[in-house]
């Protein structure tokens, strides 16, 4: 369990670091590499990637939205026919989470049987 939490935190931190230098899609190789490094498998790998990126994106967007007092999100929400700005944060989390999750899932297939997590 702790390993998963460490992996989630690592993905979030490394993704934030990598994203400050590279385009958004760098989240995919980050989720992939960290998952492989932590040797996570199956649904747990997917969830780790999903939460690592998803929580990072939700946290960042929610913080930005709060300091901006929803001025931008209200307008962009209208543009996407959304009733509440909060849905933009949900969508942000889903997009990041999905990419992170599937990238992590791909890495999990490289983790071999005998290295099964013992924690």
């Amino acid at each position, binding site marked *: 369990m702790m390993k998963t939490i460490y992996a989630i935190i690592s993905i979030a931190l490394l993704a934030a670091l990598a994203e400050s230098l590279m*385009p*958004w899609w760098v989240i995919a190789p980050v989720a992939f590499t960290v998952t492989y490094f932590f040797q996570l498998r199956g649904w747990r790998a997917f969830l780790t990637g999903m939460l690592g990126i998803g929580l990072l994106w939700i946290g960042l*967007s929610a913080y*930005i939205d709060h300091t901006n*007092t929803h001025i*931008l999100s209200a307008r962009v929400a209208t543009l996407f026919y959304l009733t509440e700005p909060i849905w933009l944060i949900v969508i942000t989390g889903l*997009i990041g989470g999905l990419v992170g999750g599937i990238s992590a899932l791909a890495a999990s*297939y490289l983790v071999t049987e005998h290295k099964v997590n013992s924690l």
Partner: protein
Amino acid sequence: MRFIGFILSTLIAVSLVYALDHPWGTAPAMGAFFDPMHGFWQNAVDERAMPDIDLALSGLHDKATVYYDERLVPHIYAANDSDLYYLQGYVTAQHRLWQMEIQTHSAAGRLTEIAGDKALDADRMQRRIGLGYGAAKSLETIQKDDTTSPLLRAYCDGVNAYISTLQAKDYPLEYKLIGYKPEPWTPLKVALLLKSMANMLSVYEYDIENTNFIAQYGEEQFNYLYPETDSFKDYVIPTGTRWGFSPESMTGFSGDIPQVSPVIDSITDIREAYQHVIEKPRELNGSNNWAVAGYKTKSGKPLLCNDPHLELKLPAIWYEMHLVSPHMNVYGATLPGAPCVISGCNDSIAWGLTNGGRDVRDWYKIKFKDESHAEYLVDGKWLKTDKHLERYKIKGKLDYIDTVLYTRYGPVVFDGSYGRVPSKKYLSLKWTAHQGSNEFKTFYLLNAARDYDDYIHALDQYSCPTQNFVFASRSGDIAIKQQGSHPITHSTVTDGSASINDWTRYIPTENNPHVKNPDQGFVSSANQFPVDETYPYPISRVGIYEDFRAMRINKLLARDAPMDVAYMIKMQSDNYGTEASMTLPLLLSIIDRSKLKADELLALKLLDQWDYLYNATISQPILYEAWEKQLDTLLWDEMLDPNAPMRMPNKYRRASFLATDSTSPLYDNHLTDPVETRADIVKMSLVHAMAKLRVVYGTLAALPDWGHYKHTMVHHLSPTLDAFSRMDVSTGGYRGIINATSERHGPSWRMIVDLGDMHAYCVYPGGESGNPGSRYYDDMIDKWAKGEYYTARYEHRTKLAAKHLYQVNIHP
């Protein structure tokens, strides 16, 4: 098994990333767009939390400081003019880059590069009327001038210095949504911006429409409905002003001076209908400006007001700025993308602009030798045509190439390859906006002007679009001059095969209509006809002139009690409908009230009691506007020919026609069997109007108030980004009223300058930031709608240094 899983999930991951990294249809690349570290979230800003900043800019010669005040208005302090314009470019781009670029792309006919082939028709129009052709010529003129050339360069360098700091995450929101990036700013773009103002403001001629009318109804009827003179008296230059032109300057006008403009003379052999016209801005759009002499004000010094009326847009058309160098200290409205202040004040003078509306275009009928269009006829000789190839890069499609033919007059706009119906009638456009000119220099000189002589000298440079420049100085002078390049033009389509029809005579710039310190103690303009019949040069009356606001303004300024800023504020928001006050009493006296339905009688009763005020909270303006609209349709049905566009007589003429001509055959509506009289048409129009209102609202009691019915909107510049518009603005006023706020058009900048204490009060329907993620994007709209103002922080630097949002210290 594991291997297949790896391949499959990797494939899914890669495809997902690919899909989210590319735009689909009109949707942006969703991954890039939603990424909080690069996408739209990065455009959420909080300027109030900005710390002071130290910034190094290599293009600067000396240290400079920018203070952003509590409305985010930048106050730029530079050590020289070059640094000043460099920073004006830098700071403007920081708030308005996307707007600057989209407006110049539109002027250049390059929207297809962003919007794809749906913009092709609009792009072709911009190039076929020769906006880029004129801009290139102006650029040459500007660059030949030793003063303006380096300053224009400095402005562009400043814009580009800002652009070069940008990473993809910093691009304005619209770039992220539409999926492209900013390109370098160039002097040509500045010239294009000025030409696009010309295209908005100097297109008021009705040559083709007039030709169609005369071809169908004859000259007599034309002169009757579009008269050269009428009872109007409130000219820009007060009646009785002595022109004081020297005989020398008059003889410079190549001999004879025609007494009336050549309306009909040139078309006797080309009486035919033209199906194509360029759509013009709506009539009764306009602007107001005025200045009051010190002896009529409380402070003893002049007051000056300006409110140019333009389309209401976000980001706003104006950007408020304060520019200070050792050479000037100027405050006011700037045009994002171009240097200088356009309407404003400095520590000695104030000035403002309204549109002059003069006819500065002609349409020449061209006879080509054959289908190759290689040669055209002038004075019995075949001259060579210039062929300009215009290449359009279209997003997602192959390039499109359009050939535009140029004659000695200008581009052949309509040649059968463009327009809704194929036509073999060739019309070449001649337009003062095609000429090289340096309007930038006028504003540069005006920004630093100290007195009346400086002001007149600054105006000498100014060519197009014709503007009424109102002026007031701290030393107590007031003045107004209608300035522009004014050839003697035609009012109908002209035969291009006779060179005598070409422009040979221009009114000398020093003889343009002007007046200084007139006896009446004020000067004003509101897009009305400029001069009375004593002006020795012909001016085509058949352009667009709006009489009603001028009448009201002059009436309000003629009062004896001393005036102050509070009175000016009341005036700029004045909702009195002069047109209604002239027309409605006539309608009410003519209408036969028998056999009307109960709600129609009630409507008349409400109108009987109306004081012609277009206040937001009442409903009578709805009834009158619905009625007068139907009246136009029924009365002027003769001019509603889909195959020959014509122009309806203006509302001033309509009122005098209704009052003085009770039996005209024009009252008969062609679409109905019986022959209608004046009384029939007045009644029919009311019945039609009420029927329309009944469909929407049921009963009169259910009518909304005027403000909600009119439903003023401030639209985002991109028609696809209505989410960034303000759709809910409730205001009074309407077309033809001082507060000329209509559905999508209105006072784009309200300014009042008290030359006594040099306080300026201003407001505009928008905000300083062009970023929909900023609280300063539309923060002034509510105050603007209520007719309230901000006090401009046109004050000493120490006060700004003590209180501001944040400051930027810049060094080379």
